[in-house]
């Protein structure tokens, strides 16, 4: 087998893609104390496990400012749920608002950061994460479009390629868009990539991965971020 193919699947000696907790930890490292952050459902939620020691305020679009972790069985408070409708705790200092006020906070630019998953991210910051098809199945959108346009920064956390190995970072999205020119940064299992004025700029790579191997798994031109 070729080196490139080996690297693409992450099995070459000397290189391992980041695991999901590693991806979340890498992202969490970039969140300073004091930010108000909304974490999407799925991998983004893992980020909250890696900010210990810093006060970061987690927002949940159903009206929680100051969300804590998932409830343990003995803590059950069924009147508290997050956006994924899991039972969660509040932290000390938390507050509750209604849905219009919660989305006013989002749309008005009061969240420092939103972290979402995505199917595709384009080099101009467009991204697609809400539906794979407008024709099949029943679509649902939730708060993704509001979060994408409202938060001060939108970071995407996702695998670098789809399950069948196709690139998810592209020149242009093929799937229905969630928002235009919204993404600031992408954290994948292979790299951390900024969306700059001229397209994708590699900030960081999983240890042992080469720029060439990363480019081979990416559907748009990469350049190194100027230090």
């Amino acid at each position, binding site marked *: 087998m070729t080196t490139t193919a080996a690297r693409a699947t992450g099995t070459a000696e000397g290189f391992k893609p980041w695991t999901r907790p590693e991806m979340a930890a890498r992202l969490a490292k970039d969140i300073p104390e004091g930010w108000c952050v909304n974490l*999407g*459902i799925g991998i983004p939620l893992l980020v909250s496990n890696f900010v210990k020691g810093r006060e970061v305020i987690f927002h949940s*679009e*159903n*009206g*929680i400012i100051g969300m804590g972790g998932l409830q343990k069985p003995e803590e*059950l*408070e*069924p*009147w*508290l*749920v997050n*956006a*994924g*409708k*899991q*039972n969660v705790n509040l932290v000390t200092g938390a507050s*509750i*608002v*209604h*849905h*219009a006020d*919660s*989305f*006013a906070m*989002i*749309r008005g630019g009061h969240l420092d950061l939103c972290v979402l998953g995505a199917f595709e991210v384009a080099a101009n910051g467009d991204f697609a994460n809400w539906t794979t098809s*407008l024709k099949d*199945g*029943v*679509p*649902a*959108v*939730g*708060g*993704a*479009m*509001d979060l994408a*346009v*409202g938060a001060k920064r939108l970071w995407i956390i996702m695998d670098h390629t789809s399950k069948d190995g196709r690139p998810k970072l592209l020149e242009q999205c093929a799937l*229905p*868009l*969630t*928002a*235009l020119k919204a993404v600031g940064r992408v954290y994948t299992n292979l790299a951390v990539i900024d969306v700059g004025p001229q397209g994708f700029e590699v900030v960081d790579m999983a240890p042992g991965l080469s720029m060439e191997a990363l480019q081979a798994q990416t559907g748009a031109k990469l350049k190194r971020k100027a230090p």
Partner: protein
Amino acid sequence: MIDKRVKSIAEAMQGIKDGSTVMFGGFGAVGSPVHLIEGLLEHGAKELTLVGNNAGTGRVEPLARLLASGNVRKIICSFPRSSGSVVFDEMHKAGKLELELVPQGTLAERIRAAGAGIPAFYTPTAYGTALGEGKEVREFNGRMYLLEHAIRADVALVEAWQADRWGNLTYKLSGRNFNPIMATAAELTIVQAQHIVELGAVGPEQIHTPGVYVKRVVHVPYGDPAPALATTA
């Protein structure tokens, strides 16, 4: 004496007509006025347009049964699909239930606008996406926005934690969600309250919804919502 309390859910439903637009609060199970939704099903009004965040789970809960009844023509909703939204899926695929899919924040703001006498407003959400297609676009300060219209309802079904005879309400924790804004956006706001309290029992700075918005209150001490199963937003 002002007394908005009614004795039964059937009484609370009086006068709801075929063709009504009916909002219902709740984010998943929490803050969902399940007994009022069941009452609406029993009341039997047809050709309804529903407005809410979700479109039901399973086949047993009142919202799923209301959809299954065929009494609902259309639903305006942000997150109809979930792992358990079987009835919605079937009805929608069969062409028996129209869907207007609205981003959650736009849905909330359109409801709030109706209650506030704002017929329309501009929002950046959904610009350039499939959900913005056909909508009026306008630029402000170099950014593009969509024109969105208020969603007014004939009836709002609201779940509250405390209510007094004036209809002053409080909500418990995440039970607040869409309930306060829906209470403002309908001709007939009906509340199912876990607790009926004396007038004045809740301080003037702690009331979440002034009674002015409320027409009928029915006491339904049903207890906690089911512990939530993780689904999606």
